[in-house]
């Protein structure tokens, strides 16, 4: 036990959790913590908006697989984190958010910059804590990191009233955690594995759907091994991109509303569906009532509440994806007579061929530009996306080969996520190129953190697919609202080249695919963040598309 302040205890506890970097913004209620940070070897990256601090810690977590940390002061600082916390919650990303609050005696008195941030974040965190005294800080930090990073990962918030930061007490570290109500079930039940194996052995047209859980649990190898043994094609969700190399013969690409034609045609034909680490979101399943109604469904997820929530599986397996996939593989390898499944494979090849013929990729269209972009990116380059058309084009046309290299706001669909997330990813992986595929509407929402990127020397490439409209909204109004374009015209778009230069970053405008590729090559070598302005037509739609509420094989292609 050592005598120290709560603020010191906090920073010491973070160091013991091997925290290297905090994304944050100081303010009145966290001054004691920042005073300790002044002498600490934990790096603090000063962001320009707390939302970006939360997204950057999320991007850091997704790129590295480690817990990301963000910090803000009380009141508006804390509430500005909320979108980022909700985003991390929906996409099961492990972050720990630290907020200051008014001194204990002022809590509940509506003091200056007081917000009930614990109340606000209760439905969007795995759990949250308000510190009651300096002594408990180390235990709560340990608990927060444990909860954030285990089971189905997610955000945890710790709220520290200012006087708990200055209070001096005997502090004990390594004092463990107490969580009577938290025991993630990671071992698959052997009986359920047996049932799954029985279905898979009999399957003639097996299909696997891989979600973000496969990446979280580090199971891509186990997934591929099982898929190859079964000769089962793999469709992924948006969050599952990266769980299987998309150039693998068994890869079908993404499933769902903007899924590939192949994935959306093949998945409904399955007789046995193995869904791993996915929550059957409405964007993946289309009309849920009829989704794969003829298939026997095996659902593996570590979160028991996801099993049976949207789809009732025939075989529920509540377990860690890696352990469950390995258990199925180990059981199958003993008895399974490998079948070439030539009929099923021919059907898939034919569908892929049909898809290739339909894809028209040329000129200054995002599909063409992104396909060309992929050719010059190393396989381990990290892509982040904003939300809307830019995101769906990226998901469709930027093939992903490795886990944790495609980072996108899947569940919450947060415009403005991609750029700050790219900064977090670059901090986590400084040696690989990081590119944010953006739309003009999204980029404007968090563009102020170009200042962070330049000040802290975090060079990324922002590719702005600039159509001067809120493109996905425009697409829906074009398709479903009789072209009555309401509030989608962004009017006077800033000159992104000058904007970048104003922040001390580099700006380039390109007018042809050749110029685009040249600009990207230059940007990836650049030591400063580069914004590439790519003017495109505002009339372009993302296809294929399944209309909302329709079955996923009811695909519109133009």
């Amino acid at each position, binding site marked *: 036990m050592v005598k120290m302040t709560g603020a010191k205890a906090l920073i010491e506890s973070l160091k013991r959790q091997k925290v290297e970097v905090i994304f944050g913004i100081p303010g009145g209620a966290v001054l004691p913590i920042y005073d300790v940070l002044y002498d600490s070897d934990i790096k603090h990256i000063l962001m320009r908006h707390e939302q970006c601090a939360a997204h950057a810690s999320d991007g850091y977590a997704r790129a590295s697989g480690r817990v990301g940390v963000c910090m803000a002061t009380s009141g508006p600082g804390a509430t500005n984190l909320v979108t980022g916390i909700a985003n991390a919650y929906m996409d099961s990303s492990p972050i720990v958010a630290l907020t200051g609050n008014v001194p204990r005696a002022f809590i509940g008195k509506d003091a200056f910059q007081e917000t009930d941030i*614990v*109340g606000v974040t*209760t*439905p969007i965190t*795995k*759990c949250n804590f308000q510190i009651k005294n300096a002594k408990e800080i180390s235990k709560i930090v340990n608990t927060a990191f444990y*909860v954030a990073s285990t089971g189905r990962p997610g955000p945890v918030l710790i709220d520290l009233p200012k006087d708990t930061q200055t209070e001096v007490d005997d502090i004990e570290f390594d004092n463990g955690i107490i*969580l*009577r*109500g*938290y025991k993630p079930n990671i071992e698959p039940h052997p009986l359920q594995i047996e049932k799954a194996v029985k279905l898979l052995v009999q399957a003639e047209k097996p299909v696997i759907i891989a979600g973000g859980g496969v990446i979280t649990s580090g199971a891509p190898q186990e997934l591929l091994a099982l898929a190859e043994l079964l000769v089962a094609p793999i469709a992924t969700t948006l969050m599952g991109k990266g769980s299987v190399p998309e150039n693998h013969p068994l890869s079908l690409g993404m499933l769902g509303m903007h899924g590939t034609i192949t994935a959306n045609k093949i998945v409904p034909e399955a007789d046995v569906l193995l869904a791993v680490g996915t929550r059957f979101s409405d964007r993946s399943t289309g009309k849920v009532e009829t989704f794969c109604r003829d298939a026997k469904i095996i659902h593996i997820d570590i*979160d*028991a*509440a996801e*099993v*049976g*929530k949207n789809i*009732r599986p025939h075989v529920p397996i509540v377990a860690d994806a890696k352990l469950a996939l390995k258990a199925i593989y180990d059981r199958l390898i003993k008895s399974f007579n490998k079948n070439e499944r030539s009929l099923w494979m021919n059907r898939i090849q034919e569908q892929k061929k049909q898809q290739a013929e339909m894809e028209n990729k040329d000129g200054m269209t995002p599909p063409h530009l992104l396909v060309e972009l992929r050719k010059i990116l190393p396989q381990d380059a990290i892509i982040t996306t904003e939300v809307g058309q830019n995101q769906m084009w990226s998901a469709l046309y930027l093939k992903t080969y490795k886990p944790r290299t495609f980072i996108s706001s899947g569940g919450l669909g947060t415009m403005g996520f991609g750029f700050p997330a790219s900064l977090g990813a670059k901090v986590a992986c400084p040696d690989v190129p990081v590119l944010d595929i953006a739309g003009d509407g999204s980029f404007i929402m968090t563009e102020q953190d170009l200042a962070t990127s330049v000040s802290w020397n975090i060079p990324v490439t922002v590719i702005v697919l600039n159509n001067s409209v809120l493109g996905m909204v425009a697409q829906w109004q074009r398709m479903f609202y009789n072209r009555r374009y309401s509030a989608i015209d962004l009017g006077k778009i800033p000159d992104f080249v000058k904007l970048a230069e104003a922040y001390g970053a580099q700006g380039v405008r390109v007018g042809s695919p050749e110029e685009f590729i040249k600009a990207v090559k230059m940007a990836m070598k650049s030591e400063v963040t580069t914004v590439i302005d790519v003017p495109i037509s505002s009339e372009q739609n993302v296809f294929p598309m399944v209309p909302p509420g329709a079955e996923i094989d009811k695909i519109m292609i133009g």
Partner: protein
Amino acid sequence: MTREGRTYIVSAIVEHKPGVLYSVSNMFRRRGFNIETITVGASEQKDLARLTVTIKGDERMVEQVVKQLQKLIDVVKVSILDPEYTVTRELALVKISTLDTKVRSDVINYTEIFKGHVVDVAHDSLVVEITGDSDKINAFIELMKPFGLKEIARTGITALSRGMKSARME
């Protein structure tokens, strides 16, 4: 959201600390599950409280309720109590106007029949305490209506499984 279906009794052992009732009730609101009654109080175990919730719904909804409750970090254990093997009780305090003195003796008679107690006597009113399952309390309240029912306070259902089968933390 109103739902048809039978009534289920969910019994949960939760951490006995501030904010837990909020996170539990917030989960019900957020997921659109309707709480019919909720009671909470100390359990036999230190620092743990027993929370009893009754909800109306189908089996699938109740399964989700249990899973979503279990997902909350401060919820230690959840079980659904089978009505056949469960003792359920509710307590009601019923205030009846007795300005008409003839009413007073009728109310006292009914209270005895229902094995209730008169717990407050004033010149113009009586307060009766009545315990039992919800049907019994409903029946008593119906009987009191013609006499000039003033106020009712009901606790909601609390429940324990019969015998040694228990929703105790192992």
